[in-house]
Each structure stands twice: as C-alpha cells, then as structure tokens.
C-alpha cells in the first residue's frame, strides 16, 4: 500500500487510549495473553505490516499499522509500578471507552 494511504487509514495516534482484544484465537497471534482485554496508551506508530495471524495461515494479509502500546503493570497484573510496552497490530485494538480514556496510566 502507498504510504499516503497508510497515513489516511491509521486508526490510532500517539496519546490514544486503546483496549486490546480479549479474543483467544485458535491460530497464531502476536497479542500475548497477558495483554488481552487491557487498556493502554499508544506511544508510537511502528510501521505497517501484514497481520501475523494472516501470514501464519498462508494468507497475504492486509497491511496495517503496528503500534507501541504502553500498559501499566497494575493494569496487567493487579500490582507493580513498572510499565510494559508491547508492539501490537491495529486489528488487536479498539478505542478505549470514554470512561477508560479519562483514567491515567
């Protein structure tokens, strides 16, 4: 896809609060279990690539944005003061609900 089209179609930007999918697929995925169904913050757009889930199943896959998403350890594990930044395909993310966006990381 042409870079200009990527820019137009990126769903998220740094600073956006996002919620990860809670889906537990049968196939290969790059959304680690410990980061599922959690709210984090997009910190960087890290390029555009076909979804790994598609490539692992022999499909060419739609090229889409991949983001660095930062999570607070307390949101992942219930405690901890550190952060974990995970690189996630756009398909794994939804906008966080309004009340979740107001929360601080």
């Amino acid at each position: 896809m042409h870079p200009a089209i990527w820019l137009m179609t990126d769903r998220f930007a740094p600073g956006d609060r996002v919620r990860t999918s809670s889906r537990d697929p049968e196939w290969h995925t790059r959304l680690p279990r410990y980061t599922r169904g959690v709210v984090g913050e997009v910190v960087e757009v890290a390029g555009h690539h076909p979804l790994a889930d598609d490539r692992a199943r022999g499909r060419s896959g739609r090229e889409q944005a991949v983001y660095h998403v930062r999570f607070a350890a307390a949101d992942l594990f219930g405690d901890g003061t550190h952060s974990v930044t995970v690189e996630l395909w756009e398909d794994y993310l939804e906008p966080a609900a309004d009340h979740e966006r107001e929360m601080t990381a």
Partner: protein
Amino acid sequence: MSRINDVGGMVGFPAVLEEPDEPPFHADWEAHVLALNAALIRRGVYNLDEFRDAIERMPPADYLAASYYERWFAAITTLLAAKGVATAAELAGQEGLPTAADPVAPSDLADD
C-alpha cells in the same frame, strides 16, 4: 487458544540462569538447524509466521522438554511434511535415502 509459548506473566518458572562465556551454538547441529531454517524461508517454502506457528503447536510437554533448537528442528520437519516437500517417514529416515552420496561427511557434523 493460548499456546505454550505464550508465557509472559506466568508464575512458577525458576530463577534466570546465565551461562558464563556461552558460545553461539552448543553443537554443530544447532548451527545447521538455524541455517536450514533461513534457507527454507528465503526459498519461500514457508514464512517466518508459519515457522513460529509450527513451534507453538508443539504439545506443551514436548515444547517445555525441548531445547531451543530442538523446537526449531521439530517445526522445520512439521512444515516440510505439511507443505508436501517430503513425507514424515522420509524426514525421519524410515524409507532411507536413494544412493546419492551423502554430501556432508559425518565427521564435519560431529558434536564438539
């Protein structure tokens, strides 16, 4: 399903052990497995995601019992069979190879 490779955040694994002065490979065959995988991906026999998928689909007990490059070799042979390059029996050597001379002298591959 969450697979056995997906260990982030799991509890119960022991302290991290470091190996002082660790060599890049612990035996020649490990280097061969790495090179074999790169060659097959470059040729388009399978892609990197299919390779990871094949590792992850190992039975959990086998995955945990296997060394790093044993997992790789298991995935390579799984994919070669799945892609129809060779049968599982051929890959396991059960049907034997035709008489073409083995191009690699056994002594070259002996473990160090």
